[in-house]
């Protein structure tokens, strides 16, 4: 009668290990066939030979809640790769790229990285979220593969000093410094309220902003809420109660839109300020908020209208996401370095990246020792304002 537990356990050890072995062998014994994605043609085995294409990788949220951002990565890289292939590739070899999905989930980032590594990529454009980039870039660095993130602004990405990790976007501390300078010196605010969404990105940005403002402007509210929160009234009350000339939100557009609508609803007229996570996203942010969005400040580097036109021409009129240009630049810089170094060894390419200097739609790109783009402490960030439903540069001082 009491066979239940016996059934379960009699062969548990044996079968358990057998299953484990089977899986391990399945996972390890197999070198996944390369899956070309995007522009370039089919590939062969993993070992690069002179006739083989040069392979680079894209790691980012291809699917999942942030798939929109992932398409920036893919599109920007596609453009760069197509341009290089049109010019005849590098050393007569075509370039192809492979995309792997991390679903914007830090859990899955190492898996995506592992797969790209086994595809034999020279370098990777990605990942998008700092939470994913941090573990993934470590994996790339261990294998001597270049990783250039076009979008992860968390300082920690490069502060670890990994020799093959770079970024072409700014850093949270630069962005926050720019915002703080604006709020204290140009906007001349007396009181500031600061919120964030308790993610690596949002909280890091808001903390940096608060630090930069310390002693310059009074911070009346410093609060955070979960990134799934959508009822902001209890938090907005704090602004009404404690007062603020301007309020800052460290987070992304998805929360910023209802936040701003609700703020206007409860009668808060002070402008909102935010970072790159809210900049852009015309359809998802500006159009959704409508008139209430006017006067909202964001920090973002100046964009290149020529690039936007090229992008639209390539992708049938599609509006580029804010990070498409960074992905394009990242891919271009990587390909330049592969070209200049004359090698497909990531470590040599990284050396070339550290030494080189390139002109790009984002201005001159030179990397410092940590892998950040050299520049002033505020980076290339400028302050934008929303006017008549569009972002326009407000202050580029």
């Amino acid at each position, binding site marked *: 009668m009491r066979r239940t537990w016996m059934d379960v356990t009699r062969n548990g050890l044996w079968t358990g290990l057998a299953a484990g072995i089977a899986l391990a062998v399945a996972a390890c014994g197999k070198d996944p066939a390369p899956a070309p994605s995007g522009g370039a043609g089919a590939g062969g085995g993993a070992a690069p030979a002179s006739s083989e294409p040069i392979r680079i990788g894209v790691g980012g949220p291809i699917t*999942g*809640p942030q*798939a*929109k951002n992932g398409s920036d990565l893919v599109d920007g890289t596609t453009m760069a790769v197509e341009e290089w292939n049109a010019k005849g590739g590098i050393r007569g070899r075509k370039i192809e790229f492979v995309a792997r999905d991390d679903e914007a989930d830090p859990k899955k980032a190492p898996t995506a990285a592992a797969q790209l590594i086994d595809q034999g990529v020279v370098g990777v454009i990605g990942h998008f979220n700092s939470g994913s980039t941090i573990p993934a870039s470590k994996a790339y660095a261990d294998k001597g593969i270049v990783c250039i993130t076009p979008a992860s602004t968390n300082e920690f990405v490069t502060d670890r000093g990994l020799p093959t990790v770079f970024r072409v976007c700014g850093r949270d501390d630069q962005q926050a410094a720019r915002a703080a300078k604006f709020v204290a010196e140009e906007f001349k605010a007396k009181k500031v309220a600061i919120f964030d969404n*308790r993610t690596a990105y949002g909280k890091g940005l808001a903390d940096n902003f608060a630090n930069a403002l310390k002693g310059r402007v009074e911070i009346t509210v410093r*609060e*955070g*809420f*979960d990134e*799934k*929160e*959508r*009822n*902001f*009234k*209890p*938090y907005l*009350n*704090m602004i*009404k*109660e404690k007062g603020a000339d301007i309020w800052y939100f460290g987070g992304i557009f*998805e929360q910023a*839109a*209802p936040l701003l*609508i*609700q703020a*206007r*609803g*409860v*009668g808060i007229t002070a402008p909102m300020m935010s970072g790159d996570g809210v900049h852009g996203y015309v359809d*998802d942010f500006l*159009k*959704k*908020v*409508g*008139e*209430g969005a006017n006067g909202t400040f964001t920090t973002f580097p100046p964009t290149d209208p020529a690039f936007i036109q090229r992008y639209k021409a390539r992708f049938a009129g599609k509006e580029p996401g804010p990070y498409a240009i960074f992905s394009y630049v990242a891919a271009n810089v990587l390909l330049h370095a592969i070209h200049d170094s004359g090698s497909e060894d990531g470590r040599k390419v990284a050396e070339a990246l550290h030494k080189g200097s390139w002109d790009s739609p984002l201005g001159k790109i030179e990397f410092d020792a940590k892998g950040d783009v050299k520049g002033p402490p505020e980076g290339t960030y400028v302050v934008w304002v929303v006017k008549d439903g569009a972002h326009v540069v407000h202050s580029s001082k």
Partner: protein
Amino acid sequence: MIQTLWDGFVQGALYAVVALGYTMVYGILMLINFAHGEVMMLGAYAGVVTLAGLAGSGAMASLGLPLCLCGAVLASMGVAACYGFVVERVAYRPLRGAGSLSPLISAIGVSIVLQNFVMLTQGNAPIYVPGADKAWQDALTGGWTAGPLSVQPTDALIVAVCVLLMAGLWLFVQKTRIGTAMRATSQDRVMARLVGIDVDRVISATFVIGSALAAVAGVLTSLLTMQAKFDMGFLLGMKAFVAAVLGGIGNIPGAMLGGLLLGLVEAAGIYGLRADYKDVYAFGLLLVVLIARPRGLLGERVAEKV
């Protein structure tokens, strides 16, 4: 302070309406319907899609906002009721009498399926109540101010509708034949069968009613937050469940009390303690209540059925 508590009260009213569904189902089946929060989300989607569609096609301008709102609420109730009915038939009924673990796991599975179904079909970006529309801005902003308290029309609407729904459900359960049958079934399912009550139909009715209520709460939540998103339901649903437990599970006035209390506690926590621990307060409160008064605030002492 008063303003924050009022906001908590509004949120609590929404919790309470969702909690009704949990409490009714738990009363009869002793099952946490993990998918209930998802049904609320489905309702919110159906409502917002209807509203946005009406606004986009220009019908809102001719029909007027109140009529469109009613239409959206009705549509969402219908859709959610269908889903509630189907979920019970597909995922819970075959498991009746299969112990308590299987239905729970099945419920979690259904919840994940519904969430991802909406994510795949409607996209993973939130959809918005047509907020840029001028009619909305006029109708849903502004409001009344009394001293430190200002009440927006949305808030007033939410509280009014929630109170009406709760009163309506209370009358339904107390006065009607089916309502009495529901109470009878929740007390003794076998005996209910023996007096001729088709228990399966009563359970279906419970799911349909609970889902329709949740749908209204979903639409109202969307009016409050201006958007609907595929993952909006789970945490809200869990909190509503906590509210149901607070009040005494299986007890309809208890769910209302628990919902309001939970809303107020959260608001007080945001105001007085730390805002970033908001989501923890609900579960902390749950633990305290379960240990100090396992039957909830209004729960009656009933012998455990063996």
